[in-house]
Protein backbone atom coordinates (compact mmCIF):
# COMPACT_ATOMS: atom_id res chain seq x y z
CA UNK A 1 0.00 0.00 0.00
CA UNK A 2 2.71 2.40 1.04
CA UNK A 3 4.66 1.28 -1.96
CA UNK A 4 1.99 2.28 -4.45
CA UNK A 5 1.63 5.66 -2.76
CA UNK A 6 5.35 6.23 -3.09
CA UNK A 7 5.15 5.26 -6.75
CA UNK A 8 2.31 7.62 -7.34
CA UNK A 9 4.28 10.50 -5.82
CA UNK A 10 7.27 9.54 -7.91
CA UNK A 11 5.39 9.55 -11.19
CA UNK A 12 3.80 12.87 -10.33
CA UNK A 13 7.25 14.24 -9.60
CA UNK A 14 8.43 13.05 -12.99
CA UNK A 15 5.55 14.80 -14.70
CA UNK A 16 6.70 17.97 -12.96
CA UNK A 17 10.11 17.53 -14.60
CA UNK A 18 8.55 17.61 -18.03
CA UNK A 19 6.33 20.55 -17.20
CA UNK A 20 9.44 22.42 -16.08
CA UNK A 21 11.21 21.45 -19.26
CA UNK A 22 8.36 22.88 -21.32
CA UNK A 23 8.26 26.10 -19.29
CA UNK A 24 12.02 26.56 -19.67
CA UNK A 25 11.84 26.02 -23.40
CA UNK A 26 9.20 28.72 -23.54
CA UNK A 27 11.35 31.06 -21.44
CA UNK A 28 14.34 30.51 -23.71
CA UNK A 29 12.21 31.37 -26.72
CA UNK A 30 10.89 34.51 -25.02
CA UNK A 31 14.44 35.62 -24.19
CA UNK A 32 16.13 34.75 -27.47
CA UNK A 33 13.40 35.42 -30.02
CA UNK A 34 13.49 39.24 -29.83
CA UNK A 35 17.26 39.23 -30.39
CA UNK A 36 16.95 36.89 -33.36
CA UNK A 37 14.12 38.97 -34.74
CA UNK A 38 16.22 42.13 -34.46
CA UNK A 39 19.11 40.41 -36.22
CA UNK A 40 16.83 39.24 -39.03
CA UNK A 41 15.29 42.69 -39.52
CA UNK A 42 18.72 44.31 -39.63
CA UNK A 43 19.71 42.09 -42.57
CA UNK A 44 16.38 42.30 -44.35
CA UNK A 45 15.28 44.64 -47.11
CA UNK A 46 13.57 47.61 -45.36
CA UNK A 47 10.61 47.78 -47.74
CA UNK A 48 10.00 44.07 -47.30
CA UNK A 49 10.25 44.43 -43.50
CA UNK A 50 7.27 46.80 -43.47
CA UNK A 51 5.07 43.96 -44.69
CA UNK A 52 5.41 42.02 -41.47
CA UNK A 53 8.14 42.33 -38.86
CA UNK A 54 7.82 38.82 -37.46
CA UNK A 55 10.51 36.60 -38.91
CA UNK A 56 13.70 34.89 -37.85
CA UNK A 57 15.47 34.62 -41.21
CA UNK A 58 15.92 37.60 -43.52
CA UNK A 59 13.40 37.21 -46.32
CA UNK A 60 15.32 39.44 -48.70
CA UNK A 61 18.89 39.55 -47.55
CA UNK A 62 20.64 42.89 -47.80
CA UNK A 63 23.53 44.76 -46.21
CA UNK A 64 22.05 48.13 -47.13
CA UNK A 65 20.93 48.91 -43.57
CA UNK A 66 24.45 48.49 -42.23
CA UNK A 67 26.00 50.38 -45.13
CA UNK A 68 23.51 53.17 -44.54
CA UNK A 69 24.15 53.56 -40.80
CA UNK A 70 27.91 53.53 -41.20
CA UNK A 71 27.68 56.16 -43.92
CA UNK A 72 24.90 58.43 -42.69
CA UNK A 73 25.00 58.17 -38.93
CA UNK A 74 28.77 58.34 -38.57
CA UNK A 75 28.59 55.04 -36.79
CA UNK A 76 32.28 54.32 -37.38
CA UNK A 77 33.22 57.25 -35.20
CA UNK A 78 30.76 56.29 -32.48
CA UNK A 79 32.00 52.71 -32.56
CA UNK A 80 35.59 53.88 -32.17
CA UNK A 81 34.64 56.09 -29.21
CA UNK A 82 32.80 53.23 -27.53
CA UNK A 83 35.77 50.92 -28.02
CA UNK A 84 38.19 53.58 -26.79
CA UNK A 85 36.28 54.32 -23.62
CA UNK A 86 35.82 50.63 -22.90
CA UNK A 87 39.50 49.82 -23.39
CA UNK A 88 40.92 52.88 -21.65
CA UNK A 89 38.29 52.84 -18.91
CA UNK A 90 38.87 49.16 -18.19
CA UNK A 91 42.67 49.47 -18.37
CA UNK A 92 42.91 52.50 -16.12
CA UNK A 93 40.22 51.15 -13.83
CA UNK A 94 41.94 47.82 -13.33
CA UNK A 95 45.38 49.30 -12.58
CA UNK A 96 44.00 51.88 -10.16
CA UNK A 97 41.64 49.42 -8.49
CA UNK A 98 44.41 46.87 -8.03
CA UNK A 99 46.79 49.45 -6.57
CA UNK A 100 44.28 50.82 -4.12
CA UNK A 101 43.06 47.35 -3.20
CA UNK A 102 46.60 46.25 -2.37
CA UNK A 103 47.22 49.20 -0.09
CA UNK A 104 43.90 48.68 1.68
CA UNK A 105 44.66 44.97 2.11
CA UNK A 106 47.72 45.92 4.16
CA UNK A 107 46.46 45.88 7.72
CA UNK A 108 49.70 47.48 8.92
CA UNK A 109 49.10 50.61 6.83
CA UNK A 110 48.48 53.49 9.21
CA UNK A 111 45.56 55.00 7.28
CA UNK A 112 43.96 51.70 6.34
CA UNK A 113 40.82 52.11 8.47
CA UNK A 114 40.31 55.75 7.57
CA UNK A 115 40.73 55.31 3.82
CA UNK A 116 38.61 52.17 3.71
CA UNK A 117 35.79 53.92 5.55
CA UNK A 118 35.98 56.93 3.25
CA UNK A 119 35.59 54.70 0.22
CA UNK A 120 32.84 52.47 1.62
CA UNK A 121 30.68 55.44 2.67
CA UNK A 122 30.41 56.54 -0.96
CA UNK A 123 28.69 53.26 -1.77
CA UNK A 124 25.71 54.44 0.27
CA UNK A 125 25.49 58.21 -0.06
CA UNK A 126 25.97 60.39 -3.07
CA UNK A 127 25.56 64.05 -3.80
CA UNK A 128 23.01 63.37 -6.48
CA UNK A 129 22.73 64.39 -10.07
CA UNK A 130 22.79 68.16 -9.90
CA UNK A 131 25.83 68.78 -7.68
CA UNK A 132 27.73 66.25 -9.80
CA UNK A 133 26.60 67.96 -12.96
CA UNK A 134 27.74 71.35 -11.73
CA UNK A 135 31.07 69.96 -10.54
CA UNK A 136 31.89 68.30 -13.85
CA UNK A 137 30.51 70.93 -16.20
CA UNK A 138 31.15 74.19 -14.40
CA UNK A 139 34.00 73.66 -11.97
CA UNK A 140 36.11 71.11 -13.80
CA UNK A 141 35.01 72.06 -17.33
CA UNK A 142 34.91 68.44 -18.42
CA UNK A 143 31.93 68.91 -20.75
CA UNK A 144 32.50 67.29 -24.14
CA UNK A 145 35.91 66.13 -22.99
CA UNK A 146 36.79 62.46 -23.38
CA UNK A 147 38.10 62.43 -19.81
CA UNK A 148 34.54 62.77 -18.51
CA UNK A 149 34.06 59.15 -19.59
CA UNK A 150 37.11 57.92 -17.70
CA UNK A 151 37.86 59.94 -14.59
CA UNK A 152 34.59 60.35 -12.62
CA UNK A 153 33.91 56.60 -12.71
CA UNK A 154 37.54 55.51 -12.48
CA UNK A 155 37.15 53.18 -9.49
CA UNK A 156 34.03 51.29 -8.43
CA UNK A 157 34.30 50.64 -4.72
CA UNK A 158 32.54 47.31 -5.17
CA UNK A 159 35.27 46.15 -7.55
CA UNK A 160 37.95 47.40 -5.17
CA UNK A 161 36.49 45.28 -2.36
CA UNK A 162 36.39 42.30 -4.69
CA UNK A 163 40.10 42.62 -5.49
CA UNK A 164 41.00 43.33 -1.88
CA UNK A 165 39.25 40.15 -0.68
CA UNK A 166 41.19 38.23 -3.31
CA UNK A 167 44.53 39.70 -2.22
CA UNK A 168 43.74 38.92 1.41
CA UNK A 169 43.31 35.29 0.39
CA UNK A 170 46.82 35.08 -1.09
CA UNK A 171 49.62 33.51 0.98
CA UNK A 172 51.58 36.20 2.78
CA UNK A 173 54.84 34.26 2.61
CA UNK A 174 55.47 35.45 -0.93
CA UNK A 175 55.27 39.10 0.03
CA UNK A 176 57.50 38.47 3.01
CA UNK A 177 60.12 36.71 0.96
CA UNK A 178 60.26 39.64 -1.44
CA UNK A 179 60.57 42.06 1.45
CA UNK A 180 63.48 40.12 2.88
CA UNK A 181 65.11 40.42 -0.52
CA UNK A 182 64.83 44.17 -0.21
CA UNK A 183 61.80 44.88 -2.41
CA UNK A 184 59.75 47.95 -1.54
CA UNK A 185 55.95 47.99 -1.37
CA UNK A 186 55.54 49.15 -4.93
CA UNK A 187 57.78 46.40 -6.29
CA UNK A 188 55.94 43.82 -4.20
CA UNK A 189 52.64 45.00 -5.64
CA UNK A 190 53.86 45.10 -9.22
CA UNK A 191 55.95 41.92 -9.26
CA UNK A 192 54.26 39.63 -6.74
CA UNK A 193 50.67 40.65 -6.07
CA UNK A 194 49.60 41.82 -9.52
CA UNK A 195 50.53 38.60 -11.38
CA UNK A 196 48.78 36.49 -8.74
CA UNK A 197 45.60 38.57 -9.06
CA UNK A 198 45.09 37.78 -12.72
CA UNK A 199 41.78 35.91 -12.37
CA UNK A 200 40.07 38.56 -10.25
CA UNK A 201 41.51 41.34 -12.39
CA UNK A 202 40.02 39.69 -15.48
CA UNK A 203 36.61 39.74 -13.78
CA UNK A 204 36.97 43.36 -12.79
CA UNK A 205 38.23 44.37 -16.24
CA UNK A 206 35.13 42.81 -17.79
CA UNK A 207 32.87 44.63 -15.32
CA UNK A 208 34.49 47.95 -16.17
CA UNK A 209 34.49 47.30 -19.90
CA UNK A 210 30.82 46.26 -20.01
CA UNK A 211 29.87 49.21 -17.81
CA UNK A 212 31.72 51.59 -20.12
CA UNK A 213 30.32 50.04 -23.26
CA UNK A 214 26.73 50.21 -22.01
CA UNK A 215 27.00 53.65 -20.48
CA UNK A 216 24.61 56.17 -21.93
CA UNK A 217 23.69 58.76 -19.31
CA UNK A 218 27.14 60.36 -19.15
CA UNK A 219 27.08 61.07 -22.88
CA UNK A 220 23.54 62.41 -22.58
CA UNK A 221 24.44 64.68 -19.67
CA UNK A 222 28.00 65.75 -20.32
CA UNK A 223 29.30 64.94 -23.78
CA UNK A 224 26.71 65.06 -26.54
CA UNK A 225 29.46 66.08 -28.95
CA UNK A 226 31.28 62.82 -28.28
CA UNK A 227 28.46 60.43 -29.15
CA UNK A 228 29.07 56.78 -28.36
CA UNK A 229 27.20 53.91 -29.96
CA UNK A 230 24.58 53.88 -27.23
CA UNK A 231 23.94 57.56 -27.71
CA UNK A 232 23.64 57.25 -31.48
CA UNK A 233 21.11 54.49 -30.99
CA UNK A 234 19.21 56.70 -28.57
CA UNK A 235 19.14 59.55 -31.09
CA UNK A 236 17.81 57.27 -33.80
CA UNK A 237 15.09 56.10 -31.41
CA UNK A 238 14.16 59.68 -30.59
CA UNK A 239 13.88 60.55 -34.27
CA UNK A 240 11.66 57.53 -34.83
CA UNK A 241 9.23 58.98 -32.29
CA UNK A 242 8.24 61.41 -34.98
CA UNK A 243 6.63 58.45 -36.68
CA UNK A 244 3.65 58.91 -34.40
CA UNK A 245 2.93 62.06 -36.37
CA UNK A 246 1.13 60.79 -39.53
CA UNK A 247 2.52 63.47 -41.87
CA UNK A 248 6.09 62.68 -40.93
CA UNK A 249 5.41 59.01 -41.53
CA UNK A 250 4.45 59.76 -45.12
CA UNK A 251 7.74 61.52 -45.73
CA UNK A 252 9.79 58.83 -44.12
CA UNK A 253 8.43 56.04 -46.26
CA UNK A 254 10.69 57.02 -49.12
CA UNK A 255 13.83 56.99 -47.05
CA UNK A 256 15.33 53.88 -45.50
CA UNK A 257 12.89 52.65 -42.90
CA UNK A 258 13.83 53.95 -39.45
CA UNK A 259 13.07 50.56 -37.92
CA UNK A 260 15.60 48.75 -40.11
CA UNK A 261 18.28 51.33 -39.36
CA UNK A 262 17.58 51.13 -35.67
CA UNK A 263 17.78 47.37 -35.68
CA UNK A 264 21.14 47.51 -37.46
CA UNK A 265 22.53 49.92 -34.85
CA UNK A 266 21.02 47.79 -32.09
CA UNK A 267 22.97 44.82 -33.39
CA UNK A 268 26.21 46.78 -33.65
CA UNK A 269 25.75 47.93 -30.03
CA UNK A 270 24.98 44.41 -28.79
CA UNK A 271 27.42 42.16 -30.62
CA UNK A 272 30.53 43.07 -28.56
CA UNK A 273 28.64 42.15 -25.37
CA UNK A 274 27.68 38.81 -26.87
CA UNK A 275 31.30 38.22 -27.87
CA UNK A 276 32.65 38.78 -24.33
CA UNK A 277 29.64 37.05 -22.80
CA UNK A 278 31.26 33.59 -22.50
CA UNK A 279 34.12 35.17 -20.53
CA UNK A 280 31.74 37.16 -18.37
CA UNK A 281 29.76 34.02 -17.74
CA UNK A 282 32.94 32.19 -16.72
CA UNK A 283 34.17 34.86 -14.33
CA UNK A 284 31.26 36.68 -12.81
CA UNK A 285 29.81 33.85 -10.74
CA UNK A 286 33.19 33.44 -9.05
CA UNK A 287 33.34 37.21 -8.70
CA UNK A 288 29.94 37.37 -7.05
CA UNK A 289 30.87 34.84 -4.39
CA UNK A 290 34.11 36.67 -3.59
CA UNK A 291 32.02 39.79 -3.19
CA UNK A 292 29.87 38.01 -0.65
CA UNK A 293 32.81 38.00 1.77
CA UNK A 294 32.09 41.01 3.88
CA UNK A 295 34.62 42.98 5.81
Amino acid sequence: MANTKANRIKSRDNILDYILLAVFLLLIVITVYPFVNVLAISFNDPIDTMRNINFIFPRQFTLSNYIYVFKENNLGNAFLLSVLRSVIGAGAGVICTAMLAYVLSRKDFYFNKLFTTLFVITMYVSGGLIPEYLLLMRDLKLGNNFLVYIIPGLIWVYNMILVRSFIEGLPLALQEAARVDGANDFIIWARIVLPLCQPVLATVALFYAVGQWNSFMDTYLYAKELPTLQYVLYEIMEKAQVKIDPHAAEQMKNAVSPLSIRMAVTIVATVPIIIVYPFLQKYFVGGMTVGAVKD
Partner: protein
Amino acid sequence: MSAGKAQKEKAIKQKFSMQLMYKQRYLLLMSLPFVIWLIIFKYIPLWGWTMAFQEVKPKNLSKHIWERPFAGLENFTKAFSDRMFNQTLINTIGLSILGIAVGTAMAILFALMLNEIRFVKFKKVTQTISYLPHFVSWVVIASIAKMVLNDGGMLDTLSGTKLGLMSTNSPLFWLTVVLVNTWKEVGWDAIVYLSAMAGIDQGLYEAAKVDGANRLQRIWHITLPGIKPTIVVLLIMGIGGALNVGMERQMLLSNGIVQDHAMVLSWFAYVRGIGNSNYGLGTAIGMFQSLVGIILLFLANKVAGWLGESRLI
Protein backbone atom coordinates in the same frame (compact mmCIF):
# COMPACT_ATOMS: atom_id res chain seq x y z
CA MET B 1 58.25 43.77 13.63
CA SER B 2 57.87 42.68 10.04
CA ALA B 3 54.96 43.92 8.00
CA GLY B 4 53.86 40.39 7.36
CA LYS B 5 53.34 39.65 11.01
CA ALA B 6 51.58 42.92 11.48
CA GLN B 7 49.20 42.07 8.70
CA LYS B 8 48.06 38.96 10.50
CA GLU B 9 47.10 40.79 13.66
CA LYS B 10 43.82 42.42 12.87
CA ALA B 11 43.73 45.65 14.76
CA ILE B 12 47.14 46.99 15.54
CA LYS B 13 47.51 50.26 17.32
CA GLN B 14 50.30 52.27 15.80
CA LYS B 15 51.44 55.64 16.90
CA PHE B 16 51.67 58.30 14.29
CA SER B 17 55.26 59.22 13.61
CA MET B 18 57.24 60.63 10.73
CA GLN B 19 59.30 57.47 10.86
CA LEU B 20 56.24 55.34 10.23
CA MET B 21 55.12 57.61 7.43
CA TYR B 22 58.53 57.30 5.83
CA LYS B 23 58.44 53.55 6.18
CA GLN B 24 55.04 53.44 4.52
CA ARG B 25 55.80 56.10 1.93
CA TYR B 26 55.10 53.77 -0.96
CA LEU B 27 51.75 52.77 0.45
CA LEU B 28 50.91 56.43 0.91
CA LEU B 29 51.97 57.31 -2.62
CA MET B 30 49.94 54.42 -3.96
CA SER B 31 46.73 55.43 -2.20
CA LEU B 32 46.71 59.21 -1.72
CA PRO B 33 45.93 60.06 -5.37
CA PHE B 34 42.81 57.92 -5.16
CA VAL B 35 41.73 59.50 -1.89
CA ILE B 36 42.06 62.91 -3.49
CA TRP B 37 40.07 61.64 -6.47
CA LEU B 38 37.43 60.34 -4.04
CA ILE B 39 37.16 63.65 -2.24
CA ILE B 40 36.81 65.63 -5.47
CA PHE B 41 34.32 63.39 -7.23
CA LYS B 42 32.30 61.93 -4.35
CA TYR B 43 32.58 64.19 -1.32
CA ILE B 44 32.50 67.63 -2.91
CA PRO B 45 29.14 66.85 -4.59
CA LEU B 46 27.81 65.92 -1.14
CA TRP B 47 28.41 69.53 -0.12
CA GLY B 48 26.00 70.38 -2.94
CA TRP B 49 23.07 69.46 -0.69
CA THR B 50 23.31 73.01 0.67
CA MET B 51 21.96 74.25 -2.64
CA ALA B 52 18.55 72.85 -1.66
CA PHE B 53 18.25 75.70 0.83
CA GLN B 54 19.44 78.43 -1.48
CA GLU B 55 18.17 80.14 -4.54
CA VAL B 56 20.58 78.81 -7.15
CA LYS B 57 19.98 79.88 -10.71
CA PRO B 58 22.47 80.62 -13.48
CA LYS B 59 22.58 84.30 -12.54
CA ASN B 60 23.97 83.65 -9.07
CA LEU B 61 25.71 80.37 -9.76
CA SER B 62 29.14 81.95 -9.89
CA LYS B 63 28.71 83.46 -6.44
CA HIS B 64 30.18 81.78 -3.41
CA ILE B 65 27.98 79.55 -1.38
CA TRP B 66 27.67 82.10 1.42
CA GLU B 67 26.82 84.93 -0.98
CA ARG B 68 23.81 83.23 -2.53
CA PRO B 69 20.39 84.22 -1.25
CA PHE B 70 19.18 81.91 1.49
CA ALA B 71 15.85 80.40 0.49
CA GLY B 72 14.94 78.40 3.58
CA LEU B 73 12.45 75.73 2.64
CA GLU B 74 11.18 77.65 -0.36
CA ASN B 75 12.63 75.15 -2.85
CA PHE B 76 10.79 72.35 -1.08
CA THR B 77 7.43 74.11 -0.99
CA LYS B 78 7.91 75.03 -4.65
CA ALA B 79 8.62 71.41 -5.48
CA PHE B 80 5.59 70.08 -3.59
CA SER B 81 3.23 72.58 -5.18
CA ASP B 82 4.55 71.89 -8.68
CA ARG B 83 1.70 70.73 -10.91
CA MET B 84 3.70 67.66 -11.90
CA PHE B 85 4.84 66.67 -8.43
CA ASN B 86 1.86 64.58 -7.29
CA GLN B 87 1.67 62.55 -10.47
CA THR B 88 5.44 62.05 -10.38
CA LEU B 89 5.34 60.81 -6.81
CA ILE B 90 2.45 58.45 -7.59
CA ASN B 91 4.30 57.12 -10.63
CA THR B 92 7.46 56.53 -8.63
CA ILE B 93 5.67 54.67 -5.86
CA GLY B 94 3.40 52.75 -8.23
CA LEU B 95 6.31 51.64 -10.38
CA SER B 96 8.30 50.62 -7.32
CA ILE B 97 5.57 48.58 -5.69
CA LEU B 98 4.66 46.87 -8.93
CA GLY B 99 8.33 46.32 -9.72
CA ILE B 100 9.15 44.85 -6.32
CA ALA B 101 6.07 42.60 -6.33
CA VAL B 102 6.42 41.28 -9.86
CA GLY B 103 10.21 41.26 -9.90
CA THR B 104 10.57 39.41 -6.61
CA ALA B 105 7.83 36.90 -7.37
CA MET B 106 9.25 36.11 -10.80
CA ALA B 107 12.83 35.82 -9.56
CA ILE B 108 11.78 33.43 -6.79
CA LEU B 109 9.63 31.41 -9.16
CA PHE B 110 12.46 31.19 -11.68
CA ALA B 111 14.97 30.19 -8.99
CA LEU B 112 12.57 27.54 -7.67
CA MET B 113 12.17 26.07 -11.13
CA LEU B 114 15.90 26.04 -11.75
CA ASN B 115 16.41 24.42 -8.38
CA GLU B 116 13.89 21.69 -9.16
CA ILE B 117 14.78 20.71 -12.69
CA ARG B 118 16.86 17.56 -12.95
CA PHE B 119 18.21 17.88 -16.48
CA VAL B 120 21.54 19.40 -15.46
CA LYS B 121 22.77 20.41 -18.93
CA PHE B 122 19.47 22.00 -19.78
CA LYS B 123 19.46 23.87 -16.50
CA LYS B 124 22.87 25.36 -17.28
CA VAL B 125 21.84 26.44 -20.76
CA THR B 126 18.68 28.09 -19.47
CA GLN B 127 20.58 29.92 -16.77
CA THR B 128 23.26 31.13 -19.15
CA ILE B 129 20.67 32.50 -21.54
CA SER B 130 18.67 34.09 -18.76
CA TYR B 131 21.60 36.28 -17.62
CA LEU B 132 22.30 37.63 -21.07
CA PRO B 133 19.86 40.57 -21.10
CA HIS B 134 21.33 41.77 -17.80
CA PHE B 135 24.57 42.66 -19.58
CA VAL B 136 22.90 44.46 -22.45
CA SER B 137 22.51 48.22 -22.15
CA TRP B 138 19.18 49.89 -21.45
CA VAL B 139 19.37 51.70 -24.76
CA VAL B 140 19.51 48.39 -26.61
CA ILE B 141 16.78 46.90 -24.43
CA ALA B 142 14.58 49.93 -25.06
CA SER B 143 15.19 49.69 -28.78
CA ILE B 144 14.17 46.04 -28.77
CA ALA B 145 11.25 46.65 -26.41
CA LYS B 146 9.88 49.34 -28.71
CA MET B 147 10.16 47.04 -31.69
CA VAL B 148 8.23 44.38 -29.78
CA LEU B 149 5.68 46.48 -27.92
CA ASN B 150 4.96 49.52 -30.09
CA ASP B 151 1.65 49.74 -31.94
CA GLY B 152 1.92 47.39 -34.88
CA GLY B 153 5.03 45.90 -33.32
CA MET B 154 5.95 42.27 -32.95
CA LEU B 155 3.55 41.48 -30.12
CA ASP B 156 0.64 43.21 -31.81
CA THR B 157 1.30 41.27 -35.00
CA LEU B 158 1.64 38.01 -33.13
CA SER B 159 -1.52 38.46 -31.10
CA GLY B 160 -3.48 40.13 -33.88
CA THR B 161 -4.79 42.82 -31.54
CA LYS B 162 -3.80 46.31 -30.55
CA LEU B 163 -2.38 46.01 -27.06
CA GLY B 164 -1.30 49.63 -26.78
CA LEU B 165 1.39 48.82 -24.22
CA MET B 166 3.51 51.75 -25.34
CA SER B 167 0.73 54.13 -26.30
CA THR B 168 -1.75 54.21 -23.45
CA ASN B 169 -1.33 57.15 -21.14
CA SER B 170 -2.38 55.29 -18.02
CA PRO B 171 -0.78 53.20 -15.27
CA LEU B 172 -0.69 50.42 -17.86
CA PHE B 173 2.65 51.92 -18.82
CA TRP B 174 4.01 51.03 -15.36
CA LEU B 175 3.19 47.43 -16.15
CA THR B 176 4.97 47.75 -19.48
CA VAL B 177 8.09 49.07 -17.76
CA VAL B 178 7.95 46.39 -15.08
CA LEU B 179 7.52 43.62 -17.62
CA VAL B 180 10.48 44.83 -19.68
CA ASN B 181 12.55 45.15 -16.52
CA THR B 182 11.61 41.65 -15.43
CA TRP B 183 12.49 40.28 -18.84
CA LYS B 184 15.92 41.89 -18.52
CA GLU B 185 16.74 41.08 -14.91
CA VAL B 186 14.89 37.96 -13.80
CA GLY B 187 17.76 35.55 -14.49
CA TRP B 188 20.25 37.76 -12.73
CA ASP B 189 17.98 38.41 -9.74
CA ALA B 190 17.36 34.69 -9.35
CA ILE B 191 21.07 34.05 -8.63
CA VAL B 192 20.76 35.29 -5.06
CA TYR B 193 17.80 33.03 -4.34
CA LEU B 194 19.49 30.08 -6.00
CA SER B 195 22.56 30.42 -3.82
CA ALA B 196 20.31 30.70 -0.76
CA MET B 197 18.60 27.47 -1.85
CA ALA B 198 21.98 25.78 -2.25
CA GLY B 199 22.60 26.52 1.42
CA ILE B 200 19.57 24.59 2.64
CA ASP B 201 20.38 21.38 4.52
CA GLN B 202 19.82 18.48 2.10
CA GLY B 203 18.94 16.20 5.03
CA LEU B 204 15.63 18.05 5.40
CA TYR B 205 14.61 16.99 1.90
CA GLU B 206 15.57 13.37 2.59
CA ALA B 207 13.56 13.37 5.79
CA ALA B 208 10.55 14.87 4.02
CA LYS B 209 10.82 12.25 1.29
CA VAL B 210 10.74 9.50 3.89
CA ASP B 211 7.64 11.11 5.36
CA GLY B 212 6.01 10.93 1.92
CA ALA B 213 6.05 14.62 0.99
CA ASN B 214 5.80 15.25 -2.72
CA ARG B 215 7.85 17.83 -4.54
CA LEU B 216 5.43 20.70 -4.23
CA GLN B 217 5.09 20.01 -0.50
CA ARG B 218 8.87 19.97 -0.17
CA ILE B 219 9.11 23.30 -1.98
CA TRP B 220 6.41 24.81 0.21
CA HIS B 221 7.63 23.48 3.56
CA ILE B 222 11.41 23.40 3.09
CA THR B 223 12.70 25.51 0.21
CA LEU B 224 10.53 28.58 0.70
CA PRO B 225 11.06 28.81 4.49
CA GLY B 226 14.75 28.22 3.82
CA ILE B 227 15.09 31.29 1.63
CA LYS B 228 12.74 33.46 3.70
CA PRO B 229 15.56 35.45 5.36
CA THR B 230 17.01 36.26 1.93
CA ILE B 231 13.60 37.36 0.68
CA VAL B 232 13.10 39.61 3.69
CA VAL B 233 16.51 41.26 3.33
CA LEU B 234 15.98 41.91 -0.36
CA LEU B 235 12.46 43.25 0.26
CA ILE B 236 13.77 45.67 2.88
CA MET B 237 16.42 46.89 0.49
CA GLY B 238 13.82 47.15 -2.26
CA ILE B 239 11.53 49.25 -0.10
CA GLY B 240 14.46 51.43 0.94
CA GLY B 241 15.12 52.11 -2.71
CA ALA B 242 11.45 52.57 -3.57
CA LEU B 243 11.83 56.20 -4.60
CA ASN B 244 15.10 55.67 -6.42
CA VAL B 245 13.61 54.71 -9.73
CA GLY B 246 16.38 55.60 -12.16
CA MET B 247 15.68 58.11 -14.90
CA GLU B 248 17.65 56.26 -17.58
CA ARG B 249 15.19 53.40 -17.98
CA GLN B 250 12.15 55.71 -17.80
CA MET B 251 13.56 58.12 -20.33
CA LEU B 252 14.47 55.41 -22.79
CA LEU B 253 11.26 53.40 -22.60
CA SER B 254 8.82 56.28 -22.62
CA ASN B 255 7.58 58.47 -25.43
CA GLY B 256 5.56 61.66 -25.71
CA ILE B 257 2.23 59.87 -25.33
CA VAL B 258 2.92 58.09 -22.05
CA GLN B 259 5.11 60.86 -20.58
CA ASP B 260 2.65 61.64 -17.75
CA HIS B 261 2.93 58.13 -16.39
CA ALA B 262 6.63 57.70 -17.06
CA MET B 263 7.93 60.67 -15.08
CA VAL B 264 9.70 59.69 -11.85
CA LEU B 265 11.37 61.75 -9.12
CA SER B 266 14.97 61.45 -10.32
CA TRP B 267 13.95 62.48 -13.82
CA PHE B 268 11.81 65.29 -12.43
CA ALA B 269 14.84 66.57 -10.50
CA TYR B 270 16.77 66.60 -13.76
CA VAL B 271 14.01 68.35 -15.71
CA ARG B 272 13.57 71.08 -13.11
CA GLY B 273 17.20 71.31 -12.02
CA ILE B 274 19.13 71.11 -15.26
CA GLY B 275 16.40 71.42 -17.91
CA ASN B 276 15.01 74.61 -16.36
CA SER B 277 18.35 75.63 -14.80
CA ASN B 278 16.83 75.91 -11.33
CA TYR B 279 19.59 74.06 -9.53
CA GLY B 280 18.28 74.74 -6.04
CA LEU B 281 14.86 73.29 -6.87
CA GLY B 282 16.36 70.22 -8.54
CA THR B 283 18.61 69.56 -5.58
CA ALA B 284 15.66 69.88 -3.22
CA ILE B 285 13.74 67.24 -5.17
CA GLY B 286 16.77 64.94 -5.09
CA MET B 287 17.19 65.52 -1.38
CA PHE B 288 13.53 64.74 -0.71
CA GLN B 289 13.97 61.49 -2.60
CA SER B 290 17.04 60.47 -0.57
CA LEU B 291 15.58 61.41 2.79
CA VAL B 292 12.31 59.56 2.21
CA GLY B 293 14.38 56.59 1.05
CA ILE B 294 16.27 56.48 4.34
CA ILE B 295 13.03 56.78 6.34
CA LEU B 296 11.42 53.98 4.31
CA LEU B 297 14.45 51.78 4.86
CA PHE B 298 14.25 52.17 8.62
CA LEU B 299 10.48 51.64 8.64
CA ALA B 300 10.71 48.45 6.60
CA ASN B 301 13.47 47.26 8.87
CA LYS B 302 11.32 47.95 11.95
CA VAL B 303 8.33 46.16 10.46
CA ALA B 304 10.48 43.15 9.64
CA GLY B 305 11.62 43.16 13.25
CA TRP B 306 8.04 43.28 14.56
CA LEU B 307 7.09 40.38 12.35
CA GLY B 308 9.87 38.39 13.93
CA GLU B 309 11.99 38.35 10.82
CA SER B 310 15.69 38.83 10.52
CA ARG B 311 16.56 42.46 10.15
CA LEU B 312 18.92 44.08 7.77
CA ILE B 313 20.38 46.64 10.14
